[in-house]
Structures are given as structure tokens and as C-alpha cells.
């Protein structure tokens, strides 16, 4: 393998101000190999791959592609050398169509040098189908769900016909069935000799697809191993540097009084948007101290339910009741919801959660400012203190509080959004994929924290696409399908397959089985 | 105009006879196309026309403001043509760009009175205006002979670069002071016709020149701005301020002379009254008017300011 390596990176180093993102990293990839890259948030995985894909150009060390030393001046150079990357943050152009996004920078031309829209549409449709989604290639990407956007980026990367394909958390917004489809594609690519770097925080995926796994910690290689031979616990210990005990520590604390009751919630927006699934009849309850999961397929309406409860749903007529602590409420705006003690951690942290070029401090405290002073004047010491405490509590990996939040690794950005909401001391916390892109150690932290908060009487409504998370963390899971609640399970006496079956509907399960 | 004659001279009789003169029994719509109303002088011109027309029961006057844009003024005149007005009064923003559209109106049989700035050729009924070169010359002579007979230093605050009156008031002044070679123009700056710009430019001129005897500004607002600047550093007594325009309004130059801020100013007639008189001659009296009527300028100084103000603006 050593001789035939498709990619060989040696002595790679990269420093961002005070942060050593990569240090003396040795990394190789053979053709037809799936090489998983693991590590905590901020370990340097994305940085290493950005170096390989030509996005980061000032680094130390050497890169060889098929035995030849290269130095890319930009992503275009890397693409020319056959290296494609699916970026962790979905970098798409909202106003352009799916097809235009897929072929951006390499548009297909007619003999007259004009854009060949028809051929692009056709090929885009084929590519999308290959990665497992049936999307109109002419739809603007800005209209798509996060999960769909992720599939578009996958299709785009596949379309490059690369020798080396880097996937940086390609599945963080996908549900089980889309992940399965993606793995099928990966296997196919592997057969045709493509080398794949696969980055994910979902441990169960690593064992399924990877041939080899490398663990990074603090920018340095810790170990390389065969993922089929190690247990998850061992991998996690390598990543985090210490054993992590019970991943899911559902405390099964006694739950208290009813905190939230949603009765037959229906939202008819004034102006319906294609692709949105507003509540069409949802009833559920959350008790204080209880963690209730929301399960469903892509587009089941989980996000829309949480948005409605948080007062950010589009205008329209709402019927049904939302009762918080025995009092009916009509959430008008996030501000109003927050005042009632409802907090939301949104799904798309970069677009909806953070001001990327503002400091960690400013981002953490923005929702709870009145707590740090009086008469509209901020006591700087108090806000710093609150911010530092929250960072400690969430084990945030950062340089200084004044650093831009955008320079944090993806998982750490997520923690900042989480911390911001916790600082408002909510009674009810709405979480939309709160651990998307969060490393396993930090996840454990977050779960522990959730358990702790629940113990203090907080109620949590948690929408997630990760079934193990739902089963492990929640007391109860409500399954949504097409904007309605279709089933409810106690996690103590049901498993992932029950949830999946309910989410897909019986007929769908039947079809799966037939295959 | 610069004396070029148009090859496309229209035949006069056709223009005049295409319309029957209805005389005193008619009702007449007059369109007034103003270059811009941001200059106090031009606003005053409109006001004068309005006031004079109010005395003629047959007249109704419409106003358009081109906001200093030649192209907009062309459109304004085109719109008047569309409306089939009975007479056009125009105070062109610039000569050449308005020539064609004025000719178009004239050829359609609409009598045209051109105020203040000429258009080229002779496709108009009558021109009424002042002479900026002459005004500049008068100002120059006044400085050379009355204010600084023994010589001295002058600074000049010019109007907006590129504007015709700016060039003419400058050239005239230069010619006027030639008579006295001991007079030196030691500095000049562009005040863009604006009071605040005149003030700011004068701040610097005062700094740069320890001794200034006369400030010659191309209009009264800039002269007033210069006065304020000099007053701020306590040097307003050291020099004399001379402006142009002499509008008979409270914020105008005549009042400034009367109140002692300016030493002198020179009237630049708005021609509003004269224009309506000419229109009356053409439409109501079915007569003809002079092709060109140049109104003389008049020196306003402490001696006559109050009297002329009362005469020109009896109610204010």
C-alpha cells in the first residue's frame, strides 16, 4: 500500500494565530480505500483536508499525489489534480438552481459556448438519483431543506469524477435511509478505484464503511487502526484521550408536572411554500424533567413544529392549543417565546445561530444581555464571567473569548449556540439536531448536561435524525409523519426499528423488506 | 450664444401664422421651464413670473424644474409640446443642449421666450437677459476705481467649475480690473455657488493670505459665506465683500448690503416681469417683441440698498 499510495501527506503543519490546527501530520490514502478521519471537534480534521483540497494554501509539509509532489494554488488546481471535497459547511449559492450549483465553475456548454441547460438538468437529475434523492434540478437551492442541500453537495462532488473524494461530515443532516443510499454510492466508487476520506462523528458509520481509520487529537495523529477490529469505546478513548463512560446516561429521573401540552396543532400558512411541512395536526406533551424526542424522515415536519412553538413560523392561521405550564400561549416571536421561558437551538447554526464574524463572547451572551447589568448598561465583568463559565461547562475548545466564532471548529460553534440558549435559563428547550457535527465526547457532555438540566426540572423537546441518540437520550419519542404525530414510544421498551417503522409508515417498511 | 448661426433657420412667418391670435378673449397656458430651483436667483425668477402673471387674467402659468439637468429640461419642454401650451418661457440650463428642443417647439408654432441664458441660432421669439460678462466687468471696474484706487489684493470665489456664468463673471472681472494694474488677484477658489462652500474656502484663503482687501464672489451667498468666515477670525473689517445677483428677498444680497455685511452687489435681473410683459404683447396684444432685450445691471451699495429693496419687494 505504501508504494501505491494515491495521496501522501507528510509533515503537515498549519497554525492559526495561537492555535496549532495541524502538527507534523502524516496521512496517506490508497486508491479504492475508504480512510476515516476521526477526532474531537477542533482536532484539525477539516483543516487537514482543506489543505489537501487546495482551500488552505499556506501550510508546512509536503503533499504527493500518485508519487508527484504538488502545491495547489487554489481549489481549482486540486480539482484539476482529481481531488474533490464535500465541505462540512454547505457552500452553495442559494439563488442558483440545483443543476447550476452542481456544475458551477464547470458549466456544460453547447457548441455555441452557451450553457447547455438541458444537458445539465439531465445529468443533475441522474446524479441526484444516484445519491438517493428525487429533486427537481431547476429548483433554487435556497428553497431546499438542509438535508436536501447536503445531498446536492454530495451529487456535486460525485460529478467531479475525482480520484480522491473527501467527505467532511456528509451525513450530519441525513436520516438513516439516505445514509444507506450514500454508503451504496461509496462502495460503488471504491470499486472503481476512487480513494475516499470520510469524516464523521457518527461512530456506527465508521465501522460500516471505512477500511482504515486515523485519529487526530490536537492536530496530531494519535493512532491508525482497522475500524472493524475496535469497539466504539476504544475508538472514543483514543479520540478523547480518556475513557468516556456511559454515552447515553438517561437518568430516568422522576418527571414532574406537565410543562407543555400541544393539542391538535394545525398551521395553515397564508402563503404556502413548496417543500415546507407545517403542522397538520400534532398533539404531544412534555413534562418538566422529561426529554421528549421528535423522530421523522426528511421533511416530516419536525423543524416546522419547533419553529411554530418558538414563534418563527410563517404568518397564517393557527388552530389548536399550545399550553405552557397550564397557561395557553401564542408564541409571536422568538423574543416573546424566550420571555415565556422557551429556548430554541436551531438546526443551521451558521445561518440561524451565529454571527460568524463576531466574538465568541458577543455570540454567547446576546440572548441574555439584561442579566448582566441594569438600565441597559452592560457590566462587562459579569458577561465575561457568564461566558467563561458556560464555555467551561460545555468544554468549549477556543483560544480567546474575543476570537471570532467563525474560527471555531464546527462542533464548537454548535456548543456556542447551545450555550447561548442555556444562558437564558429556559423552562422548555427546543433542540433541532443539536448535536449535528458535534464530536462524541462533546455529545456525551451535552447529554450529561441535558440530563442534569432535566433533573432540575427543564423540559426538552429534541428533534434528531440520529436514532441511537433518540433512543439513548430521550424518555419518550414522538414520531412525526407528514406533519402529524403518528406514534409515541417509551424508549425503555422500544428500539430503533420501531421508530423507523413508524416514521416510514407500514407500507414503506414492507417495501424495504421486499428489497 | 457664441455667435454661431444655425443652418436650420426656420421660416419665421410660418411659425407665427400657424396659430390664430385670439387676443384678449383667449385663455392662454404658458409653460415655464426652469433650469433649477435650487438657486435662489431662479426661484426668484419663478416667483416674479408668477406674480406678474397673476395680473393678467388670461394667463395660466405652469412651472417645471429641470434640477440642473439638460436632459431633464429637454424632456420638460417635450412634455409642454405634448400638452400644446400656448407659449413657452425657458431659462435654459445650458445653451447648446436646449437649442434643438426649443426649435422644435418654435417650429410647432409655439412662441418661445428665452430668459437669462441664450440658446443658439434664432429659432425663438425673443431673448431677455442680463450680460454676465458685463456684470463682471462692472464689478471689476468698481473695485479698480472705487474700492481700491491705490491698488490692493483681491481674492475671488468662483461659481461651479464648468458653468457658463462662472466663466463669464470671471472673464468680465479680469477685464474690469485691468484698468488698475496695482490690483492683484492673489487667490481664488471654487465655492460652487454655495454659501457653506464659500465659507469653508474662505477659511483657507484667510489662512493663506495675511492681507486681503477685497473678496469678489460670483454670487451673494458665497460672499455671505466668506463674510461669516472672516468674522469668525475677527478679520471682517479688514476687507470688503462684493457679490452678484442682488435678489430682493430677505436672504438676498440687497439686504446684506443694507445691513452692512456686503459692500456692494450687482443686480442680475430675473427678467420675470419682463417675460410676462412680452408674453402679453404676443398673445393678448397680438404684437411682436424685440428679438433680444438685454437688461442692464445696477450697482447696489449702502446708498441705495434700502430704497431699492423697498421698491422691488414692497411686502417683505
Amino acid at each position, binding site marked *: 500500500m505504501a508504494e501505491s499510495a494515491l495521496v501522501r501527506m507528510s509533515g503537515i503543519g498549519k497554525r492559526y494565530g495561537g492555535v496549532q490546527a495541524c502538527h507534523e501530520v502524516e496521512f496517506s490514502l490508497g486508491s479504492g480505500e475508504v480512510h476515516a478521519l476521526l477526532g474531537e471537534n477542533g482536532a484539525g480534521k477539516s483543516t487537514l483536508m482543506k489543505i489537501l483540497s487546495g482551500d488552505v494554501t499556506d501550510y508546512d509539509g509536503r503533499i504527493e499525489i500518485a508519487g508527484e509532489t504538488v502545491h495547489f494554488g487554489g481549489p481549482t488546481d486540486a480539482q484539476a489534480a482529481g481531488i474533490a471535497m464535500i465541505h462540512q459547511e454547505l457552500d452553495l*449559492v442559494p439563488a442558483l438552481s440545483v443543476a447550476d450549483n452542481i456544475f458551477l465553475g464547470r458549466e456544460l456548454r453547447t457548441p455555441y459556448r452557451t450553457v447547455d441547460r438541458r444537458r445539465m438538468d439531465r445529468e443533475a437529475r441522474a446524479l441526484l438519483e444516484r445519491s438517493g434523492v428525487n429533486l427537481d434540478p*431547476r429548483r433554487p437551492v435556497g428553497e431546499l431543506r438542509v438535508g436536501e442541500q447536503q445531498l446536492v453537495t454530495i451529487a456535486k462532488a460525485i460529478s467531479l469524477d475525482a480520484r480522491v473524494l473527501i467527505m467532511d461530515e456528509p451525513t450530519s443532516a441525513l436520516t438513516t435511509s439516505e445514509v444507506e443510499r450514500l454508503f451504496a454510492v461509496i462502495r460503488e466508487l471504491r470499486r472503481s478505484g476512487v480513494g475516499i476520506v470520510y469524516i464523521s462523528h457518527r461512530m456506527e458509520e465508521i465501522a460500516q464503511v471505512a477500511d482504515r481509520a486515523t485519529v487526530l487529537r490536537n492536530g496530531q495523529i494519535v493512532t491508525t487502526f482497522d475500524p472493524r477490529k475496535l469497539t466504539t469505546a476504544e475508538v472514543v478513548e483514543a479520540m478523547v484521550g480518556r475513557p468516556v463512560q456511559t454515552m447515553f446516561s438517561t437518568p430516568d429521573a422522576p418527571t414532574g408536572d406537565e410543562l407543555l401540552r400541544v393539542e391538535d396543532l394545525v398551521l395553515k400558512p397564508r402563503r404556502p411554500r413548496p417543500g415546507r411541512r407545517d403542522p397538520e395536526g400534532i398533539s404531544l406533551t412534555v413534562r418538566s424533567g422529561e426529554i421528549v424526542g421528535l423522530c421523522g424522515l426528511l421533511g416530516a415536519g419536525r423543524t416546522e413544529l419547533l419553529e411554530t412553538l418558538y414563534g418563527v413560523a410563517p404568518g397564517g392561521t393557527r388552530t389548536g392549543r399550545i399550553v405552557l405550564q397550564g397557561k395557553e400561549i401564542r408564541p409571536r416571536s422568538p423574543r416573546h417565546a424566550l420571555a415565556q421561558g422557551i429556548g430554541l437551538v436551531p438546526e443551521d447554526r451558521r445561518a440561524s445561530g451565529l454571527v460568524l464574524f463576531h466574538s465568541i463572547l458577543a455570540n454567547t451572551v446576546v440572548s441574555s444581555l439584561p442579566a448582566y447589568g441594569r438600565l441597559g448598561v452592560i457590566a462587562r465583568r459579569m458577561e465575561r464571567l457568564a461566558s467563561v463559565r458556560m464555555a467551561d461547562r460545555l468544554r468549549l475548545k477556543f483560544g480567546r473569548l474575543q476570537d471570532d466564532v467563525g474560527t471555531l471548529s464546527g462542533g464548537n460553534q454548535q456548543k456556542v449556540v447551545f450555550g447561548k440558549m442555556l444562558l437564558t435559563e429556559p423552562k422548555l428547550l427546543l433542540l433541532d439536531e443539536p448535536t449535528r457535527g458535534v464530536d462524541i465526547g462533546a455529545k456525551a457532555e451535552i447529554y450529561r448536561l441535558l440530563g442534569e438540566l432535566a433533573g432540575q426540572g427543564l423540559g426538552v423537546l429534541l428533534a434528531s435524525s440520529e436514532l441511537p441518540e433518540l433512543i439513548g437520550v430521550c424518555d419518550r419519542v414522538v414520531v412525526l409523519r407528514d406533519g402529524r404525530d403518528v406514534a409515541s414510544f417509551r424508549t425503555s421498551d422500544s428500539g430503533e426499528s420501531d421508530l423507523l417503522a413508524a416514521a416510514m409508515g407500514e407500507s414503506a417498511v414492507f417495501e424495504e423488506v421486499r428489497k | 450664444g457664441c455667435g454661431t448661426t444655425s443652418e436650420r433657420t426656420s421660416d419665421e412667418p410660418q411659425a407665427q401664422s400657424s396659430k390664430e391670435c385670439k387676443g384678449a378673449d383667449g385663455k392662454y397656458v404658458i409653460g415655464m421651464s426652469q433650469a433649477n430651483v435650487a438657486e435662489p436667483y431662479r426661484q426668484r425668477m419663478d416667483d416674479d413670473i408668477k406674480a406678474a402673471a397673476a395680473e393678467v387674467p388670461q394667463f395660466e402659468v*405652469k412651472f417645471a424644474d429641470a434640477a440642473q439637468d*439638460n*436632459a431633464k429640461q429637454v424632456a420638460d419642454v417635450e*412634455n409642454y409640446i405634448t400638452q400644446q401650451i400656448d407659449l413657452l418661457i425657458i431659462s435654459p440650463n445650458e445653451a447648446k443642449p436646449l437649442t434643438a428642443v426649443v426649435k422644435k417647439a418654435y417650429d410647432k408654432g409655439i412662441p418661445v421666450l428665452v430668459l437669462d441664458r441664450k440658446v443658439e441660432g434664432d429659432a425663438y421669439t425673443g431673448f431677455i437677459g442680463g450680460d454676465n460678462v458685463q456684470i463682471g466687468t462692472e464689478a471689476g471696474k468698481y473695485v479698480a476705481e472705487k474700492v481700491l484706487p491705490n491698488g490692493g489684493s483681491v481674492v475671488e470665489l468662483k461659481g461651479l*467649475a*464648468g458653468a457658463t456664468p462662472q466663466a463669464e463673471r470671471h472673464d468680465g472681472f479680469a477685464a474690469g480690473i485691468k484698468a488698475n494694474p496695482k490690483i492683484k488677484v492673489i487667490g481664488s477658489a471654487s465655492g460652487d455657488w454655495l454659501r457653506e462652500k464659500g465659507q469653508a474656502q474662505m477659511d483657507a484663503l484667510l489662512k493663506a493670505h495675511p492681507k486681503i482687501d477685497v473678496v469678489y464672489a460670483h454670487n451673494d451667498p458665497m460672499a455671505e459665506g466668506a463674510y461669516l468666515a472672516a468674522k469668525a477670525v475677527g478679520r471682517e473689517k479688514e476687507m470688503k465683500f462684493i457679490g452678484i445677483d442682488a435678489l430682493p428677498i430677505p436672504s438676498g444680497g440687497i439686504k446684506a448690503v443694507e445691513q452692512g455685511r456686503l459692500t456692494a452687489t450687482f443686480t442680475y435681473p430675473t427678467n420675470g416681469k419682463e417675460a410676462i410683459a412680452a408674453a402679453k404683447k404676443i398673445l393678448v396684444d397680438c404684437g411682436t417683441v424685440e428679438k433680444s432685450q438685454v437688461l442692464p445691471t445696477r450697482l447696489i451699495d449702502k446708498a441705495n440698498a434700502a430704497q431699492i429693496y423697498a421698491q422691488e419687494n414692497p411686502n417683505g
Partner: protein
Amino acid sequence: MTAVQDKPATPVERASGGVAATLFRFQSVFGLLAVFVAAIIFSPRRDGEILFLSADNLANVVRAVSEIGIIAVGMTFVILIGGIDLSVGAVLGLAAVGSAVLMVESDWGFLPSIVVVLAIGLVFGALQGMATAMIGIQSFIVTLAGLQIARGLARIWSDGQGVAIAYGDGPNEAPSSFALLGERTFGGLVPIPVLIFAVVAIAAVVFLRISAFSRHLYAVGGNEKAARLSGVPVIRVKIAVFAICGLLASLAGVVHAVQLNQGSPNDGIGYELDAIAAVVIGGTSLAGGRGSVAGTVAGALLLGVLNNVLALNNIDSNIQLLIKGLVIVAAAALQRLRPAS
């Protein structure tokens, strides 16, 4: 600021279905239609004839907006990449002066003069593009400086005076071929400037539809990082867009000179704001990435019709300012009615 809610036309929006969608696809035209109908209703009549609708008057309306329209097409490109160009009015002045000086004072021929003048606009725009794309200065500042520089150059070139254009074969006369640009065609009905505007607009619409470059332009404005990662030559796109805008501004300057028989260094003062207004009323977002040339044309015409009907009714110029302000806001508010998609 309204980037989140904003949803003007996107290049690929046309494929989606539904009656409402079809209607709203032409939303930028709604405001224009409304103003047009209002113009007919409020138009003065003579002998039963609606003056506003007379062929002559309609030709005047379009002629009057043709220069702003040409500029606004270029401005649309600049705004689509998230920039702004404040220099267009001054470049128009510079080009008008250039045409006049070259043809009249230097006695150059028609073609060489036009080519040089257009090249000046192109290069001026490209230089501004370089300053913003390569040094990274905000385009507002670069082009504000560009405005002053172009204005200063025009004043120096023309000695601060308007240069009158007379036609003929003699010395100090412009070739009569130039005069043709200002004439009317199709039976004296359609002014050539209108034709030029139409050609520019149609070319731009088609170009945006079929070229790969247009995809790159939307990408740079919509998500610059994504564009860069996809291998879009971001810097080249920016420079090209500013160059196109400069070129069109100088084309408008040529048209201006021939329409007014003069090139004056003070021509085009404030045109940048009118052009930007046309673009934004046409539904293009100042945040970049969304908008269309068709919308811009509708916006320019809306402003033209509005000016015309106010003038035809001889509304007092101060009241006109008020009405115009309110109509502009109303037209922009109309844009906000959208079936969300």
C-alpha cells in the same frame, strides 16, 4: 438588510409552475403596470385624445429613460455581485466630453472616437474593479473616488466648459454619421437612443440566461466563498463586471452627447442614484445574488412614466418630489408581495 426576506427573481426561477407563480414571476412588472394604468387615468386629454398614450409622448418617455436605462443595465450586473458603482454618472460625463472633444476639437472620425471613448469607460471600470477585487476596498468607496476622478478628468479635458457639437465636414465639426445616432427611425417614431437601450437590454437578458459567466456572477454575489471553492474566477468576474458597467456608462455618455449636441463635464450628475433606484425598484437585492435585468428595465420605465405623467399634469415640482417618493416606496412594497417559495 433585508437579505433574509428578500426574494427577487433568480436566473433559474422560471421553471416552476402554478398560476400564481407565473404571475409573480413577472412581479417586477407589477409596479410598472400599476403606474402605467394610473398614468392613463390621470393623463390630461385633448379632444378626447389621451395625451399620455400618444405615440409621440410614449416615444419621449422611453427616450428620456434610455440613458438611465443603459446605465442601469450595467449597474444591475454590479449590484448582482454585491457591489455598487457610484461613478457611472461621472463616467457618462467623461464620455460625453470625450465624444465632443475628439470629434469636434480633434476632428477625429466617428468610429475611432466612439471606440476610444468606449474603451476609456471600459478601462476606467476595470480599474475600479481591480481596486475592489484585488485590494479588497469596498466598491462604494472605490467608485465614490472614481466619481470624483472621472469628474475631474472631464473638467480638465474640456477646460471646464461644455463642448458644443456642430455637424458637417469642416474643421471643428463632428461627422454627420454621429448625428444619426440622435435621429428617429421607423417612420420618425422610434428614437435611435431607444433602439440602443433596447438592444443593450435584450442582449443583457439573453446573456444572463445563456452564459456561464452569468452563473458565476450570481454565485459571486450569492455566496462568494462557494464560488471560490467551485473554481469560479472570482476576481476576474468582479473586474469584468465593473468593466462592463463602465463600458455601458460611457455608451450612455455617447448617447447623451448626441442627444444634447454637447459634451459637458457636468453631464450626468446624480444619474447614479436614478440608475440604482431603477435596479432596486426592479427587484434586485442590494445584498447581491438575486435580481434580473428585466426587472431593471421595468424599474427604469416605471420612473420614466412617473416623471412623464407628473409633468404632463404640471404638478408643482415640490409636490412632485413628494409623490415620486411615495410611489417609489409603494412600488418597492409591491415587490414584497410574493408567494413565498
